[in-house]
């Protein structure tokens, strides 16, 4: 084979290779789920308010009889759909702070545990006004505890929601969370909880690639010494619009406003 022939063969091979590569489907990068933008205007008639009490750290919430002021507040301000008390831990056989608040305010109390023990249980208390026929949750010891009440939210048109809470301290909890929520995001499951600060970006990334039709927002607070971040996870027909920081006595409280957007926008 002379030199010229070899050149021609090489050139043709190169062209064929180039052509075949250029005709391949473009490589697609899975960017995960992105919720569509919500309406710019907030419909005040469709806002659900939930008060979330939390120190956003590893400390127990009630340390010095702070519950008295909370009792006064719940008795006088009745507009929130529910009141959540992160780390309102309970000692077995002793009065749980959230049960006491429920009794004193003539409301109903629930407790979503976060640890398992026969003596001291960490968890989040929940106070609601009506009698609840469905308190729904999951308990996967050593992995994830999540739970909440099914309630009728008194909006423009009443809407049934399941208001849930959980505490996320490890990345390994994310798959369990997604499994539990599953299609729940299509059945009005709203989750208000806390996630350890250093894994909040991982949470965002994981949900983006393993869940659909949801909205997730994190809320920055100026609280010193915090280790956790507050998050609101809703189906796309809801959106966490605003979180207002306040204190009740010395207890940090976050007033979460979630809007029901009525129509599903996929």
């Amino acid at each position, binding site marked *: 084979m002379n030199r010229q022939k070899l050149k021609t063969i090489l050139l043709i091979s190169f062209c064929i290779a180039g052509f075949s590569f250029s005709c391949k489907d473009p490589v697609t990068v899975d960017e995960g789920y992105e919720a569509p933008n919500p309406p710019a205007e907030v419909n005040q008639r469709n806002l659900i308010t939930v008060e979330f009490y939390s120190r956003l750290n590893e400390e127990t919430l009630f340390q010095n009889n702070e519950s008295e002021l909370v009792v006064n507040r719940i008795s006088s301000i009745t507009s929130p759909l529910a009141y959540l008390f992160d780390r309102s831990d309970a000692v077995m056989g002793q009065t749980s702070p959230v049960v006491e608040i429920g009794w004193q305010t*003539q409301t109903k109390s629930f407790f979503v*545990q976060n640890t*398992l023990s026969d003596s001291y249980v960490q968890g989040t208390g929940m106070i609601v006004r009506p009698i609840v026929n469905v308190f729904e949750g999951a308990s996967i010891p050593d992995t994830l505890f999540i739970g909440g009440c099914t309630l009728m939210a008194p909006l423009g048109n009443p809407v049934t929601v399941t208001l849930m809470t959980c505490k996320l301290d490890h990345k390994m909890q994310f798959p369990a969370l997604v499994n539990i929520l599953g299609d729940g995001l299509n059945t009005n499951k709203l989750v208000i909880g806390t996630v350890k600060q250093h894994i909040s970006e991982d949470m965002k990334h994981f949900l983006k690639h393993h869940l659909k039709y949801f909205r997730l927002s994190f809320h920055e607070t100026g609280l010193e010494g915090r280790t956790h971040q507050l998050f609101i996870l809703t189906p796309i027909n809801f959106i966490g619009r605003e979180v207002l920081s306040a204190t009740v006595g010395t207890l940090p409280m976050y007033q979460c406003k979630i809007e029901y957007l009525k129509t599903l926008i996929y």
Partner: protein
Amino acid sequence: MVYKIASYKKRLFFAFFLILLAYLTSDAQTLSIRVMSMNMKEGGKLANFNAETYSACIREYNPDVVVFQEMDNFTTRNGNKDLLSEMAVKLGMFPYYGKAFTYASGDFGNAILSKYPFYNARTLISQPSGAVEMRAYSWIDLVLPNKRKVRIAVTHLDVSSDDQVRISMLATINSNILTDNKLPTLLIGDFNATPDAETMNYARFKWQDIGEGTANTISSSNPTKRIDYVMGYPKSWIKKGYEVVCYPGLSDHCFIVADIEHP
């Protein structure tokens, strides 16, 4: 060849070790629980709706879970109070109220107190044709400190003279409590039926009468009939202790305190 056999034996031993380890670390511990059943007789009327009186009785037996029938919630009859939550505060337990119907400006139904937090709770109501009134059945799912899970349900079947009404209620309960349920389950309460009644024959198709052959439960001053039960599903519960205790000053029914296990 000798080397290969030795290696095979090593692998086999390792696999056996892993299986043993998995077995030892699995949730193989026995489910052991003390339950108590209390019919409150018109919301606690006999003890003047006094939370401490009932709490003292419960404290004496230190149960893990107490189920109540005929519990009032903010009725004019009970002085507009939440007796269940008040008892929960006194006993350091977690309350769940299941409403059957509206009564005396408040609610009437069943209730549960649990020493451990529960992660699921439901109340459903039923009033089959011929029933005297609407009745509720409620249940909670809880995980015990040894990681064993259990479902505990309370019911108060209708007082109608017709067994078919109670059977119909039980059929509804079975379909709602047992369908897709893998947890060992207890159904406790006032069945308004003696052991030889058709209602209990039907109940025993699915459920184990854990207190079979134990004492009568009504009336509390002169017990002549057994109509309160602790029923178990599946039928593999083990009775470790079963007491029928009577307090005529608290209720017309005797109460049940049962120590039971599920392997």
